[in-house]
């Protein structure tokens, strides 16, 4: 039973927001994910994930100051909520359970 629905990309985004703490806004999150994961993220995908999770209550947002490199437009900072942390935690535990359930014979497999 899926209690906290969280896609793979959503999970990455949520984690990154948590990592960035006070500094998590659209472009910053995008840069962070791109530098850590060597994948390119479109603003569309990111923003739609952020808004979706905001609706679900995993995130809250707050308007920040404008800056010159944004042409004076305000940043929208996202912060993870306790509920969002719970979702991450839940997801992590589901995975850990699965990891722990892998039999020795399989987990000993190595490819080098």
């Amino acid at each position, binding site marked *: 039973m899926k209690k906290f629905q969280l896609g793979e990309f959503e999970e990455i985004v949520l984690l990154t927001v948590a990592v960035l703490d006070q500094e998590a806004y659209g472009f910053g999150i995008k840069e962070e994910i791109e530098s850590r994961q060597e994948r390119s993220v479109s603003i569309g995908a990111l923003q739609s994930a952020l808004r979706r999770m905001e609706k679900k209550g995993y995130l809250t947002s707050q308007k920040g100051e404008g800056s010159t*490199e944004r042409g004076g437009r305000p940043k929208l900072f996202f912060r993870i909520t306790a509920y969002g942390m719970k979702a991450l935690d839940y997801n992590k535990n589901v995975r850990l359970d699965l990891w722990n359930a892998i039999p020795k014979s399989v987990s000993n497999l190595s490819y080098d």
Partner: protein
Amino acid sequence: MIKRFADIVFKWYCRKDYYLDIRGDLEENYMKHRERHSRRIADLMFLKEILLLFRPSIIQPGLNFLFSTNQSAMLKNYIKIAFRNLQRQKAYTAVNVLGLSIGITSLFFILIFIESEFSYDKHHKDGDRLYRVSTEATVNGESVTMITSPPGLKGRILADMPEIEASTRIVSFLGISKNIMRLGDRAITETRGYLADPNYFEIFNYPILYGSRERMLEQPQSLVLSKTLADKFFDEVDPVGETITIVNDYGTSDYAVTGVYDDRGINSHMNPAFVCSMNSGQIGRYVVGNDRLVGNNFLFTYVKLRPGTDAKTSSEKIQGLIANHVESPENAHGYLPVTDIYLHSSAPDQGNIGGDIRYIYILITIAILILAIACINFANMAAAQASKRAKEIGVRKTFGALKRMIVTQFLGESMAITLLSLIVSIAAIFLLAPSYSSFTGKEIATMQILEKIGFLVAIGLVTSLLAGSYPSFYLSSLKLKNILGGRSSNSAGSFIVRKVLVVFQFVVGILLIVGSMTTAKQLNFIQSKPLGFNSTNQLVVPLQSEEVITQLTKVKSTLLAIPGVQAVAGTTYTPAQFVLSDNLFRASPAQPSEDGIIIRQNDVDSGLIEVLGIEVVAGRTFDESISGQADRSIVVNEAAVRALGLTNESILNNDIYTEERDGVVGYNVIGVVSDFHSRSLHRPIDPYLFAMRPGNNMSSVIVKIDANNYQRTISALEDRWDSLFPTLPFEFYFLDQQLMAQYESDQKFAQIINLFTTVALVLCLIGIFGLTSFTVQQSLKEISIRKVLGASMGNIYTSLALKFLLLVGIAAVVSVPIGMIVMTKWLELFAYHINLGVSAAVFPVLIIIGSSLIVISYKLFFAARVNPTVILRGD
């Protein structure tokens, strides 16, 4: 610019409360790309982000229906089917998209061109109340409209006609003469200079960058520069107060720069490079002290009427008004709206630059025809698909699809094709924009293209509605039992519609070929027609300044000493220039001067007639060794002899008479030369005389050179010139090139016609290809049965080709007479032109027949090789 466009789109679809901060992210992202990439790449990446942002959670709630499942299911199915169909029939899609995009692209460029042609003089404040005063005179029994008027007219009409709010005059530094403008060691040659009354810039609005609009033309010897010209002398600094020396035929004098106006991006029939105050130099002083109301028509008078004045009534009053002050006011005056001058004033002789409204109409017609052909192709081919799509429609109808739904589906499909064509067109427009600019000399900015995108989309929509309506209504009205019963789905009626459409295409094709062949022939005729004088290996060297003109003898002897130079002679007008100087001549002093005929007069050196190689038919030419009244001796052409009502014998060694300042003067005719074309072939040969009066200033020398080593001769000429006049640049033209320049607009016209004829022909062929494919497809069974019964390839080919030849025949009957009438009208613009022969009618038809036969053969070649059993097996 792409970025701006993308932003507008984004702003439109994005949720309002999300826009600002996402836009901020986009900006930051854009700046990051800008660091590493070119602007274009960064713009495109920006566009990509915008496209990827189109998601249910970001778009406005109002647009969400696009993602809703219920309503869109059917839509999705239509789109899926449409794209499957397009994919399955790649040739069909390609041909359609190609045709439509050619049509849309051509239309776009024609429209951009027309738009710019119509933009002339639209910037003046109250431009609808500005008029240029013209003069209607009678010359050699013909009524002639001159765009110039007498110097005293302005003062008179301003005083006597209350409806005239303001008036200003300009004098061109006669378009033919060059002005050398000098500042320090920088010298620039400029032709477009005017003298103007002080209120010039109050009537004609240009943004003033430096100086005072009201006062900058008040003082004598003031000079106002255009921004373009100012930039050549000064680097972005205020030039007011600087002194520029202007050197031209009238002398050398200093002008003080009093202002700069912005001419960039402004189209005007005057198109001045600089404006001097009227009260300057010899001509200026002549104008200021001149109040003649008749004659001396050498300046341009503009009036600004008070609001609500009727221009026609006002202009008709002028002649009567002048009658109060002058005994015989022989000329009437008219007004031409300033906004119409560029396109409607056809006075190229009088130094008028301009477009031609007739060419604009022709271009509009061609644009419409091209789009029409593209639409017809489209409709034809879509209808031709009917047989393939009939089963699908049958199934849809069985499942309860309404006629309306099927119409929507097929309109949607035609829109899909239009959309593809639009994308192709926009790409093509961007690719072709530089060629367009270099061909027309009109810049075309990216922004201008983007501004037109909305318009292109509109064209696309109209196209798809026009082109898609026929097949969609036709297909949706198919009877279910016919379709699924396997009966042929073609009624006779629908086939006739298609035939009419194809005939229309043939008609257009033939018309365009007639047009392009005739223009090509006429231009070829002009280039090869003997002009009555020798124009090859003749150099024209303008005598740019008074300094040179006074030393003419020295110049001539110096140039003649160069090996390779055969002869040198001075002339006031070269054969490529309009002879401004004329006078009324009569055969006997007793005749009244009104009965005289106008003879154009050119003052020349003794050797000029020989240098040009004009044939002498009676008498002799000028000879300096024969002493006597050289200044009263003239050589006339045969047209002058005829116009005076004399013969070569009776005129020789006799006098003809004209009125001069000190009464009637007789000129002794010492020779008659055969008629030569002193004007472009648009015009008949005028009565003409050569004189050798002392004190008349030559404007150029004509240098006859050897055809061999002419480059060495020219560089020797340049060396000598530089040693004689170190401050003046050496300039020269080839006479034959100068002559060809008279036909530049005709040549441009021919090129445009040829280009679009080719486009239209390609479209026609695509159409023929489409229809043949269809016919062949339809007749596959017939062909197979014939083959089974023993018909040869030849028989089948003949029967099919005959069907098409019949259509071409009908088209020929319609189009040939129209083409003949239109082209005869065009040829009448030339006083000397070719006659349209039978070949002008036959060749275009043969070309159309030939090309359609090729297409038919190609199609049939494949159709006839199909094994009959494959086709007949199904029945």
